[in-house]
């Protein structure tokens, strides 16, 4: 998100254009004076995939294809692969290196993974969100793996005397010739290379030193594995890399780094964003054993990006003293610019706005005429409360600032962004700031915002010692970058045959952009790209609108972002419309999606700045057949249409998010008024499947998070302050009531159907599937998230 927000805040929004990907054909080696080891033509056109354009190349610092940055091989054969994306539970620290290891021929048992520091000029983009890691990096991982395999093969040819020149001469020949070298006479197996003529094998370790002298080949020189040759990719049999450490308590998260002489800081922050610090009395705090110092951080007002909120910090020898000290502070806060933020009034205001015409973002056909001429207009509105991410690990960071340098350890999704922000906050050159990334105890978008790491850096500088800033759970829930609150109003025009002739959807929600730039009250292109302007229905007249809503707290992105309220509204609405028309809910959904086609944004009135998750549209189009397929698959697996006992219902919802298609069929049983979910079927189509085991775990997790946000998640504001504090009033579903059995059905594709991510797309359809099931079980239609845990 960060990249697009910065673009939008700076007004530099450029729609993505397709680039022409060169039609790659393999040239045979011609033999020149420069290369005395000419080999015969390659036996087959073994190019494993046609390279395609992904949005990663347009991200800051783009994609890196240099295997010498990502891979090293020790003489004992240990292959070390860099994980440059942050691990917050998706499995990325395993899955991307696994792709590279498979393509290079490494034995996974001999692979070691090291975590990259925040260094995008070196590693390429590291901003871990937007379900982008696999989507953006699978090709570069394959290319680097194939490159290393090629380099090892050349090294083996030299080792076996197939090339009768010193490797330095080979290296020189690479640079001197336009022609390409090909591997001949050797076969790269698993962690070794065999001489085809003699059967003699040599290990990767023994070849490492020579291989590293071989120039890195170009994509066109590479021979990729056929999909059938993968040993790990697509299999789901690799144990997540950190799993053993996690189960034995050895895994290192943000708070687990210890530095000599480190202090712990806990901060009292303003209850409403920007509320001034009038006065404080730290006498009681200072009297607590272990409390050593008090420090002030300047109060910031929106938009402040990730600048800390400011406040009063208690510095102590250990966490317990710091928390008690903070709680003992007596503080008077003044009135800030958002101290009048009250949820009840604000929601009423949003409802009013949603019922008036909004700013038109997409117009197709003649919606005014369609509604004017309608036999009937059917409209409903749906709302969602603010949410906090509440990762199990609250924000925490460690900083050691001394001698004009800063070293940071933090669980951050955007390590290079963190480094840039800390360099700016400390007024240090970026070269003097180091950001080490620990494991993240959950992220969900919260840890894309590095305010907590900036706090640690400022306090370490001020205190003159290493400092860990520890957020309590209350801090986390009070001072999140909240998921926005929204009202979505949808209306359809129906003709006298009950055919839908017009669609109007007005979305009203404070924008994330308000955190980055002066608030216009309007959403921007990434928010409208998430299930709003891109609604995939085949309806001739469309008006997609956005009404104004100003932000009064820090708005951030939460797993699946605006897709959550959009799927909530649209998928609930379709089911309601079906009931209104006496139609089957699933059949009407399929009918509205319509014929098999790819949507045609420029000719369907999409806005000029339409955002397809940063992807070139032609590479990741909106393909209705894929959305219908997952819908039918989930329905079929769940036994859609079967008679259920009273108090039970099936609900269905489908949504495309982050270019992945997910449909959910949820079974709800009402037990003594309690909404329970005994079973869910989730069908997911994310293109090529790299790690099905972690895809399943993401879907199972999305089911739980989706049920939590459906039933429980509401942050409300009074006088600018969040009213919830901890898991007693911001509960998440527990072992006693969660989606008991989640069946994940993965649609398989060849590599040519581009891989996409799964971290977020599972979440949006869960809540509407549950609410539709509640309706089918009880006849009660619930339109406001959260719907609560019980129905009467």
């Amino acid at each position: 998100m960060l990249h697009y927000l910065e673009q939008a805040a700076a007004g530099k929004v450029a729609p993505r254009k397709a680039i022409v990907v060169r039609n790659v054909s393999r040239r045979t080696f011609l033999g020149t004076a420069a290369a005395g080891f000419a080999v015969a033509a390659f036996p087959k056109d073994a190019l494993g995939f046609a390279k395609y354009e992904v949005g990663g190349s347009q991200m800051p610092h783009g994609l890196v294809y240099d295997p010498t940055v990502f891979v090293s091989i020790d003489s004992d054969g240990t292959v070390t692969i860099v994980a440059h994306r942050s691990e917050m539970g998706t499995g990325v620290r395993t899955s991307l290196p696994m792709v590279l290891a498979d393509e290079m021929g490494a034995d996974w048992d001999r692979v070691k993974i090291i975590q990259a520091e925040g260094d995008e000029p070196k590693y390429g983009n590291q901003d871990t969100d937007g379900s982008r890691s696999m989507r953006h990096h699978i090709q570069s991982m394959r290319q680097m793996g194939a490159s290393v395999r090629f380099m090892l093969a050349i090294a083996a040819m030299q080792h076996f005397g197939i090339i009768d020149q010193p490797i330095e001469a080979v290296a020189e020949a690479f640079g001197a010739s336009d022609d390409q070298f090909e591997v001949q006479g050797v076969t790269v197996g698993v962690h070794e290379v065999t001489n085809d003529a003699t059967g003699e094998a040599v290990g990767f370790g023994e070849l490492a030193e020579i291989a590293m002298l071989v120039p890195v080949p170009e994509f066109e020189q590479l021979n990729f594995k056929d999909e059938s040759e993968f040993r790990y990719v697509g299999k789901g049999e690799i144990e997540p890399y950190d799993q053993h450490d996690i189960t034995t308590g050895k895994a290192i998260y943000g708070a687990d780094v210890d530095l000599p002489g480190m202090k712990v800081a806990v901060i009292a922050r303003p209850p409403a964003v920007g509320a001034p610090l009038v006065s404080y009395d730290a006498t009681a705090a200072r009297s607590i054993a272990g409390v050593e110092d008090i420090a002030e951080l300047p109060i910031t007002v929106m938009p402040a990006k990730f600048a800390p909120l400011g406040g009063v910090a208690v510095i102590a020898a250990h966490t317990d003293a710091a928390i008690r000290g903070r709680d003992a502070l007596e503080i008077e806060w003044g009135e800030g610019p958002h101290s009048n933020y009250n949820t009840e009034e604000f929601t009423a205001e949003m409802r009013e706005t949603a019922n008036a015409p909004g700013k038109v973002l997409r117009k197709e056909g003649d919606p005014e005429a369609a509604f004017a001429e309608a036999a009937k207009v059917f409209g409903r509105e749906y709302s969602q409360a603010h949410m906090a991410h509440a990762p199990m690990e609250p924000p925490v960071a460690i900083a050691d600032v001394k001698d004009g340098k800063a070293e940071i350890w933090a669980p951050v999704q955007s390590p290079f962004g963190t480094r840039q922000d800390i360099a700016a906050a400390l007024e240090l050159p970026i070269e003097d700031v180091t950001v080490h990334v620990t494991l993240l105890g959950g992220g969900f978008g919260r840890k894309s915002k590095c305010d907590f790491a900036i706090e640690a850096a400022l306090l370490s500088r001020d205190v003159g010692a290493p400092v860990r800033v520890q957020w309590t759970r209350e801090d986390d829930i009070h001072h999140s970058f909240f998921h926005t609150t929204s009202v979505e109003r949808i209306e359809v025009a129906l003709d006298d045959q009950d055919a839908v002739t017009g669609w109007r959807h007005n979305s009203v929600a404070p924008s994330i952009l308000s955190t980055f730039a002066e608030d216009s009250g309007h959403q921007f292109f990434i928010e409208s790209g998430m299930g709003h302007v891109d609604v995939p229905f085949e309806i001739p007249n469309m008006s997609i609108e956005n009404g104004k809503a100003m932000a009064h707290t820090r708005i951030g992105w939460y797993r699946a972002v605006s897709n959550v309220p959009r799927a909530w509204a649209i998928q609930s609405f379709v089911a309601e419309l079906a009931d209104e028309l006496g139609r089957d809910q699933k059949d009407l959904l399929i009918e509205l999606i319509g014929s098999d086609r790819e949507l045609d944004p420029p000719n369907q009135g999409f806005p000029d700045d339409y955002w397809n998750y940063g992807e070139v549209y032609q590479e990741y189009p909106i393909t209705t057949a894929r959305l219908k397929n997952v819908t039918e698959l989930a329905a079929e697996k769940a036994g859609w249409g079967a008679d259920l006992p009273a108090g039970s219902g099936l609900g269905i919802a489908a949504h495309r998010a982050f270019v992945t298609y997910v449909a959910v069929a949820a079974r709800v049983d009402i037990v003594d008024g309690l909404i329970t979910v005994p079973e869910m079927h989730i069908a997911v189509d994310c293109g090529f499947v790299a790690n099905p085991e972690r895809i399943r775990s993401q879907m199972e997790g999305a089911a739980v998070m989706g049920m939590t946000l459906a039933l429980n998640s509401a942050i409300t504001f009074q006088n600018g302050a969040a009213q919830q504090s901890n898991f007693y009033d911001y509960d998440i579903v527990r072992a006693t009531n969660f989606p008991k059995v989640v069946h994940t059905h993965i649609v398989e594709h060849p590599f040519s159907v581009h891989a996409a991510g799964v971290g977020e797309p599972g979440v949006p359809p869960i809540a509407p599937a549950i609410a539709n099931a509640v309706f089918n079980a009880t006849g009660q239609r619930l339109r406001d998230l959260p719907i609560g845990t019980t129905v009467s």
Partner: protein
Amino acid sequence: MAQLTINGESRTIDVPGDTTLLWALRDLAGLKGTKYGCGVGLCGACTIHVDGVAQVSCMLTVSQVEGTEITTIEGLSDDGNHPVQVAWRELNVPQCGFCQAGQIMTAASLIEDKPDISDQEILDGMSGNLCRCGCYQRIVAAVRTAATGS
């Protein structure tokens, strides 16, 4: 000054007796496997064993556990192969992993001498441990595997 027995080892911890056990373990005894998640006994991330029984360490003070045997995730087994840990890995339970030490400690105490534990007992027994990633389906299956061996 408190005298604690942690993972079979006698430790002297230089804090007042009313210091929260969780922070004494993490900040002063250097045992980082026990996690802070809520501080009010609602999430279970800080679960340890006191004389073999699962308890949340954020709700205990060091003076309350003097004279007891404290076990943390680091001391659950010598080789990291407690049946619960093995089951956790077999079923690939963790996602982010942050809550898992607490989950494992609760599960290990729950299944002690209960090879015929019922599904409802597992659900009830694990209900104090939150997982925001949502690993419950696998947690429940792994507890059953660890308890029953299948």
